[in-house]
């Protein structure tokens, strides 16, 4: 069942085009790297603020307001380009351990972000400076940073375990 779905996905005309057109895959990969650099870079700005390591004089609310629109746009672009690359060889990617780990880490980063928005970040409007930011926010920030570093590492290891230019 799962195999049939993956096979159907990689048989679509768009997946076939990505697989067979020599220049399409590298261009998609370029956009993917740029998008993920902006995701990780912009999230780290929030994470470092939560950890009290940067933007210490600026409120958490102002920091997230400036940065999160960039994060979401870049994430959408990374997901789109990542989806295209996945579709081009769906069966191989789906069975790659690093690909599975990468998806799991992105899921955990999402849960961590959800926990911040729903629970940990309650009252974050009052966190004007790093000194006013509670310890639990530092933990969320550190966890997020570690998870996203893991996502980048898994992404690179996918390239070395699947037969593709590195």
């Amino acid at each position, binding site marked *: 069942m799962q195999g049939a779905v993956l096979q159907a996905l990689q048989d679509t005309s768009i997946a076939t085009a990505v697989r067979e057109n020599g220049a399409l895959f590298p261009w998609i990969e370029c956009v993917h790297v*740029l998008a993920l650099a902006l995701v990780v870079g912009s999230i780290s700005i929030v994470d470092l603020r939560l950890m009290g390591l940067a933007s210490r004089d600026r409120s958490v609310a102002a920091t997230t307001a400036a940065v999160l629109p960039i994060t979401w746009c870049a994430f959408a672009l990374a997901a789109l380009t990542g989806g295209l690359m996945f579709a081009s060889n769906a069966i191989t990617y789906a069975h790659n351990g690093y690909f599975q780990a990468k998806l799991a880490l992105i899921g955990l980063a999402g849960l961590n972000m959800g926990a911040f928005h729903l629970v940990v970040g309650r009252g974050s409007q009052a966190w004007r400076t790093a000194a006013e930011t509670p310890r639990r926010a530092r933990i969320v920030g550190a966890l997020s940073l570690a998870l996203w570093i893991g996502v980048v590492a898994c992404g690179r290891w996918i390239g070395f375990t699947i037969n593709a230019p590195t």
Partner: protein
Amino acid sequence: MHALDSFCTWLEATSVSRTLQTVEWIIPAVQTVHILAVASVVTSALMVDLRLLGLGLRDQSVQAVARRYLPFVWWPLPVLLASGATLIVAEPARALENPVFWLKMGLLAAAIVGTLASQRPLRRSARLLAVLSLAAWVGIVFAGRWIAYVQGG
């Protein structure tokens, strides 16, 4: 290009290069560090440039935004150069004999000069420099990926 050929051949035969070629986890780990440093540089340059263009962070002055984010452009640069140099030592011809690598280095020089120049106070061309340096950073990321697809050496 005989001298460059000989240099690449010599470099890839050194024990340091051999180690980098044979220990499987080193290259992906160094590439991960390289990408994380790129993330810091490109995102921070984007924040400064968005403010220069008046497209974001308008509750703060240009100077305040530059003070906040420019350190995250400059201090990862040594990390980028060190990790990039490690990748070159591992596979010298892949980069040094690859035109895309030299395009990337040219764009890097342009991006650094553009970022420095856009910080001069009251410069009328600051916005143009912001757009040009952003384009250069994007080109650097793209060229970095294309090095893997264009044959060097």
